[in-house]
C-alpha cells in the first residue's frame, strides 16, 4: 500500500478545525453526511475536559480517523456518538438522528467495536455472534446465515464452535469485529481496532476494514494512535490533542501543509563540538522545529535542490555536517507540526498516562 499518496474521491475540506459542520444539521434518510458534530463538549464530573468543542462531518462511505495520543478524547467522542455518554454541550447527528433525542434510532443504525475486546469467553465464537444478532433483534435464520458469513470474513470459520477462552488475542479481536458486522450497520465505530496486536494481525484487520467499505459501502469511524494505521486506512483524519481537534483533512492534504521535505541533521562546530545553530535563514527553509538530542529538524520546499545549498552555506560558516536524513512528510510530522510534539513521545509517558487513566475512570 502506498502510504504517501492522497486518496482520490474525497472532497477537499478546510483544514482549520471547526470549519467543518458549518452547514445545517443533516436530515434523516437524506444524502447528508453519516456523522455530523458541532461544538461537541464532554466534561466529566471530576472536571476533566475530555472533548473540547469538536466539530466534524463524515460523508457516507468514508473511512474517517480520529488520530491522537491516549487520553486525547477519542474514545469519549465515540461514546457520545453511540449514545453511551451524554455530551456536556454541542450537538451530534448519526445517520441524521440526533444522539440526544433519537438515541434508540442511533443504536439501531450503528455498530460499535470497543477497544476492550468485549467477547464472552465462556461462550463459543458462534454463540457470541448469535447473541449479538439477538441483541440487534435479527431473526434466527438471518443470524445463522450472516454469522457464517462474518466469521468466514475474519477467518474464524474453522474455530467458530470452539470456546472463546481458547482463542488468542488476535482471534478475539477479529471475533469482536465480526460481531460488530452481524447487523450490517450503516456506520461502524472502531475504537483502536488494532491496539496491542502484532503486525500481521494488524494488516489483516486493515484489509477487513478496507473490504467493508469497498464491498458494503459502510462508513467507518475509527480512532487510533498509530500513525501508520491512519495513513494506511483513512481517507481523512482529524488530529485530536487534549480534547481539541487541531487539524482535519485528507491525509495527503495534511502532509502538504507540513511542506516539502523534512530534513534532520547533526552539525559540528569549528572546534569539533556539536552545535545547533538557528537555521531559519538558510536557503529554502520553511519551518524549523526545536532542536532535540543535538539534532536540527526543519522543513524545506524542495529537498533535492535545497539541501546541497544548505550544506554549502553551513560549510561557509565553518560547520561540518555529521549526519543528514531527509524524508517526505508522514503523519508523524503532521502531528508534530500541529501540536509541537511527537505523538510517540507521549506513549507510556507518565503524566499522559495518568490523564488517560483519569478519563477512563471517570467514564466508567
Amino acid at each position, binding site marked *: 500500500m502506498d502510504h504517501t499518496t492522497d486518496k482520490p*474521491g474525497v472532497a477537499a475540506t478546510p483544514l482549520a478545525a471547526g470549519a467543518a459542520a458549518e452547514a445545517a444539521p443533516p436530515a434523516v434518510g437524506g444524502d447528508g453526511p453519516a456523522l455530523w458534530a458541532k461544538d461537541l463538549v464532554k466534561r466529566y464530573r471530576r472536571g476533566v475536559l475530555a472533548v473540547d468543542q469538536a466539530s466534524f462531518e463524515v460523508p457516507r462511505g468514508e473511512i474517517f480517523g480520529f488520530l491522537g495520543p491516549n487520553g486525547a478524547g477519542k474514545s469519549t467522542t465515540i461514546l457520545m456518538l453511540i449514545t453511551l455518554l451524554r455530551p456536556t454541550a454541542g450537538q451530534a447527528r448519526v445517520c441524521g438522528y440526533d444522539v440526544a433525542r433519537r438515541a434508540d434510532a442511533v443504536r439501531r443504525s450503528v455498530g460499535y467495536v470497543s477497544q476492550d475486546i468485549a467477547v464472552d469467553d465462556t461462550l463459543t465464537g458462534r454463540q457470541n455472534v448469535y447473541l449479538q444478532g439477538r441483541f440487534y433483534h435479527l431473526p434466527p435464520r438471518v443470524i445463522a446465515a450472516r454469522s457464517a458469513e462474518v466469521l468466514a470474513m475474519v477467518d474464524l470459520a474453522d474455530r467458530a464452535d470452539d470456546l472463546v477462552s481458547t482463542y488468542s488475542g488476535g482471534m478475539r479481536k477479529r471475533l469482536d469485529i465480526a460481531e460488530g458486522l452481524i447487523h450490517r450497520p450503516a456506520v461502524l465505530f472502531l475504537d483502536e481496532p488494532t491496539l496491542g496486536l502484532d503486525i500481521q494481525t494488524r494488516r489483516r484487520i486493515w484489509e477487513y476494514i478496507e473490504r467493508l467499505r469497498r464491498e458494503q459501502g459502510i462508513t467507518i469511524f475509527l480512532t487510533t494512535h498509530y500513525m501508520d494505521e491512519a495513513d494506511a486506512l483513512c481517507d481523512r483524519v482529524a488530529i485530536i490533542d487534549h480534547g481539541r481537534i487541531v487539524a482535519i483533512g485528507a491525509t495527503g492534504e495534511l502532509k502538504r501543509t507540513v511542506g516539502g521535505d523534512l530534513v534532520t541533521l547533526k552539525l559540528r562546530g569549528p572546534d569539533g563540538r556539536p552545535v545547533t545553530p538557528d537555521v531559519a535563514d538558510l536557503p529554502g527553509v520553511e519551518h524549523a522545529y526545536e532542536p532535540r538530542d543535538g539534532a536540527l529538524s526543519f522543513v524545506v520546499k524542495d529537498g533535492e535542490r535545497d539541501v546541497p545549498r544548505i550544506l554549502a552555506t553551513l560549510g561557509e560558516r565553518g560547520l561540518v555536517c555529521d549526519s543528514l536524513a531527509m524524508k517526505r512528510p508522514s503523519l508523524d510530522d503532521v502531528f508534530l507540526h500541529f501540536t509541537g510534539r511527537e505523538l510517540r513521545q507521549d506513549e507510556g509517558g507518565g503524566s499522559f498516562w495518568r490523564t488517560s487513566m483519569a478519563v477512563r475512570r471517570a467514564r466508567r
Partner: protein
Amino acid sequence: MSEAVVKPAVVVPVPRGNLLVDTWWVCWRELKHYVGQPMRIFMTLFQPLVWLVLMGNMYQRIAAVPGFPAKSYLDYMAPGIVVMVTLFGGMFTGMSVVWDRRLGFLHKMLAAPLARSAVVTGKMLAAGIQAIIQGLVILLIALAMGVKFSAGIGGVPLLLLLAALLCLVLTGFSLALAAVVTTHETLMALVNFFTMPLMFTSNAMMPTQFMPTWLADIARVNPISFAINPMRTLFLSGYDVAGLVEGFLILGALVAVMAFIASSLFRRGMA
C-alpha cells in the same frame, strides 16, 4: 482502491425490540454461564446439603426448648436454608455486572438497541431461575432427610415461587449497588456487609420469640421474613392463605421497587 467503492450503505435501522424478548437474551447468556461451569452447578447443589447437615445437627436440641414452633429443628430450618441459599445467590448477582463493565461487555450491551432495562431484568430473571432450581434441590434433600412438607405437592410451586421472588428482590438490590459501585472489591465488601445481617436479623434460623425484643422487631420488618413465614407454614402446617397472599404481595411490590431503582441507576449514567 477507492475506485471500486460501492455506493454508500443505505441506513436501514434494525427493528425495535421489546423488553420481554431482550430480557430473555440477557438471561440466556447468564444461563449459558451457569451450565458452562459444571463445578459451579455442583457447588450450588452441594452447598445446601452441607448447610442442612451441619446446621440441622448443630442446633438439634433447640427443638426441646418449650415454645419452639416445630417438632425437630431440621423441620424448622429447612425453609431457612432455602432462604439462605437464595439470599447468597441473589446478593452476588451484582458481581457479574462489575465483570461485564470491566470486560467492556456492559458497554456492548448498552450500545446495542436493547431495551434499557433489559440488562437488569435479564440478570434478575436468570437469578430467579437459579433460585427455583436450588429451592427444588434443597426441598428434595430435606425430604430425603426426613423433613415433612405439610402442604404436599401443590405447595411446591408456591414455595419455589416465593424463593424466586425473594431472589429477585435481592438481585435488584445487588444490581442497584453494582450500578453505583464499579470495583469488585468494594461491591464484595458491601454485599458481605448486607448479607449476614439480613440473614441473622430474620427468623430464618431462630424463632422471633427466642430473640431480644429489639431484634425481634427488626426481624418482623426484614424483607427476608416476609418470604420465610409463608414458606415455613407450607413446611410445618400446610396452607395459610392470608399469610401467602401477604407474602406474595409484599415481595412482588419489593421486586417492582428494586427493579425500578436498579434500572434507573443504570440509565442515569447513560444518555
